């Protein structure tokens, strides 16, 4: 057995079933070792960025650790965006890259790059394998680090000669991580404090982030027993069903009026598995000004107190803590508070402007109604992403897969590849924008190669729409370099050229039929919807603003 075979053996022992990746000169031994290992399915991407986002989609939608392979130099460097994305959004990944042979390291060899150096700030940890017999220990450690505590990406760089060297070590080697001890159990006294504060609160809210997906069941029991209003961050969408009566939707820059007002007036915030991103808080000095008790539950101690002042810090696993909360929950006296919240909801529903042309919002709503929310959704990044976050009400945890922290355009299509691989029988919708889609569209070929029936719903507004919106609001409509329509491809024809069913929809009267046709087709589809060009995402809190500065409706239309 050589080093490459030892890597695959170690991966199988970790329970890995799928590897996403692209072969090249320096990782060929690992691909050679795949021959004769039917237990490991490989999904060939058309670009390493596509493969790593696919691994992220696989991991985010399943909770399992995603695995991605790339060759040295350019192959590995193409992973960088995905690694940074996974680090920001706490996605468990193990990336294994080929490196030039040990003797060539440091000589500017062909396809050489200092991959452990480059990826150091965008991984939770990384390794350069120097000794073939250390492979089992390193792979075990990588999976422990990637999947426990606050999950994240781990990269293992393996020189080609190490891959080819005879392996004489043992697979029984144990991880040796003396400095790695995630705290799972919350401190009992802090929990007591939290429960006592909850009992006294008149206007509490719970804010749940991406850390809540594994705790969804307990969080729901706690929420229903206590009657606390629930705000789900972009990464927390689906922890409780989006249409649950206690869910107020997303907070922050493009959050609902009810969610933002509730935070503004709350006397207690119970934050679980979220990190007070600037897109949520806006101006920190004016964030949640009436809070007397801020309880922050997070498995990463560095997130507690990083952004907002915390009164009751609870370092621990969201599920562990939520189970305790659920066990001790009692119904809170919140009738007055709910009456205020219901009033905000009634007066300020999410804007659904009536247009002559189709709007992104109505397309997303039509898909939601047609599926009843029983689907996995991925998105690119931009206006369509925010519309999807507002109008798609995920029915179950891990079903809304999006690039939150890093905001990686081009995430949607490759992520959908991974989601569909993880959930072969499920409906997978990729809500994408014309700008975002064109950053990674080569992965249409991956859909065809593996017969993955992903439905891309392309909301084409002919612009880099989010930038255009900011230029409209803050740059006096100076639309610098955001026009795409003059040079966009014919998306339906493009899809057909890949062998993907493609069609274009322009008229409202065709919407229902198009939605049905998209969902009914048993292979991949690209449905292009030509939507109103100058749509804005509202409500909007301008960057650095507070809930007081919330623009509830499009000011252009108020003027009209």
């Amino acid at each position, binding site marked *: 057995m050589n080093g490459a075979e030892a890597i695959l053996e170690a991966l199988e022992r970790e329970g890995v079933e799928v590897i996403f990746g692209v072969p090249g000169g320096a990782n060929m031994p690992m691909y050679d070792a795949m021959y004769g290992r039917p237990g490991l399915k490989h999904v060939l991407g058309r670009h390493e960025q596509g493969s790593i986002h696919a691994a992220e989609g696989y991991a985010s939608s399943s909770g399992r650790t995603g695995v991605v392979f790339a060759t040295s130099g350019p192959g590995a460097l193409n992973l960088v965006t995905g690694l940074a994305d996974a680090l920001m959004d706490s996605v468990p990944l193990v990336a294994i890259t080929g490196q030039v042979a040990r003797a060539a390291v440091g000589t500017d060899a062909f396809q050489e790059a200092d991959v*452990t*150096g480059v990826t*150091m*700030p965008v991984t*939770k*940890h990384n390794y*350069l394998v120097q000794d073939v017999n250390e492979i089992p220990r390193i792979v075990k450690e990588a999976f*422990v*680090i990637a999947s*426990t*505590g606050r999950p994240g990406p781990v990269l293992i760089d393996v020189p080609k000669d190490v891959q080819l060297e005879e392996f004489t070590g043992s697979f029984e080697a144990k991880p040796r*991580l*003396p*400095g*790695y*001890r*995630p*705290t*799972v159990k919350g401190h009992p006294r802090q929990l007591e404090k939290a429960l006592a504060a909850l009992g006294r609160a008149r206007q509490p809210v719970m804010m749940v982030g991406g850390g809540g997906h594994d705790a969804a069941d307990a969080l729901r029991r706690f929420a229903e027993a206590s009657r606390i209003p629930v705000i789900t961050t972009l990464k927390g969408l689906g922890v409780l069903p989006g249409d649950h009566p206690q869910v107020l939707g997303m907070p922050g820059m493009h959050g609902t009026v009810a969610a933002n007002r509730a935070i503004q007036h709350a006397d207690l915030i119970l934050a679980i598995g979220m990190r007070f991103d600037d897109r949520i808080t806006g101006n920190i000095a004016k964030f949640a000004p009436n809070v007397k008790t801020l309880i922050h539950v997070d498995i*990463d*101690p*560095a997130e507690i*107190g*990083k952004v907002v002042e915390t009164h009751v810090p609870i370092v621990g696993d969201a599920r562990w803590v939520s189970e305790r909360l659920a066990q001790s929950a009692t119904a809170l006296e919140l009738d007055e508070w709910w009456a205020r919240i219901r009033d905000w909801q009634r007066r300020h529903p999410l804007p659904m402007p009536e247009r002559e042309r189709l709007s992104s919002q109505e397309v997303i709503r039509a898909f939601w109604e047609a599926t009843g929310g029983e689907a996995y959704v991925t998105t690119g990044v931009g206006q369509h992403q925010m519309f999807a976050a507002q109008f798609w009400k995920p029915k179950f945890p891990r079903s809304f897969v999006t690039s939150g922290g890093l905001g990686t355009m081009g995430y949607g299509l490759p992520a959908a590849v991974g989601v569909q691989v993880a959930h072969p029988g499920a409906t997978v919708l990729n809500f994408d924008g014309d700008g975002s889609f064109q950053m990674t569209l080569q992965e249409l070929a991956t859909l065809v190669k593996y017969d993955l029936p992903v439905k891309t719903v392309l909301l084409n507004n002919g612009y880099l729409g989010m930038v255009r919106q900011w230029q409209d609001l803050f740059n006096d409509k100076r639309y610098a370099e955001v026009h795409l329509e003059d040079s966009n491809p014919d998306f339906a024809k493009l899809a057909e050229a890949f062998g993907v069913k493609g069609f274009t929809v322009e008229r409202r009267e065709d919407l229902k039929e198009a939605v049905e046709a998209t969902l009914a087709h048993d292979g991949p589809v690209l449905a292009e919807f030509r939507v109103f060009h100058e749509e804005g995402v509202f409500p909007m809190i301008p960057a650095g603003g507070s809930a007081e500065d919330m623009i509830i409706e499009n000011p252009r239309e108020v003027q009209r």
Partner: protein
Amino acid sequence: MRHVVSVLVEDHPRVLTRITSLFARRGFNIESLAVGKTHLPGLSRISIVVLGDDRTIEQVEKQLNKLVEVIKVTDHSEPHVEREMALVKVRTEGVEERLQIKEIVEAFRARAVDVGRSSSIYEVTGDPGKIEGFIAGLEPYGVLEVMRSGAVAMSRGEAILKPRLKKEAV
């Protein structure tokens, strides 16, 4: 505020890079950094002098703790010993000046480690204030070169920076 932070780390390649890269990325200010092996096999110890308010230092500690190869971090806010060593090369030409320099050297409990025809090297150890005082005292005679080791620190009394024996279940 000036803080001295000691970090016990696994003695792996690039561990120092991980730490300095973390400081650069998070915008923490390093005044000095000193690193060396410990008596425990495979473990090195780093003393870092950091400038920042309490909140920054809290983040420094927490972010350092997130590094997989960092075993333990302590901010020496409690009573501790802090020492730095410096080598100072001074112009020593006139006899009169040599005598004056000798007085300064004695006052600071420094010592000559190299005596040349026109210059000498002195070694001084102490807290950073003493080092600065020594250098300032020699300034009038012509300081040619200074090499400071950076501060090293250790808590007084029972507190010991050591690896935990029991590992909490993951």
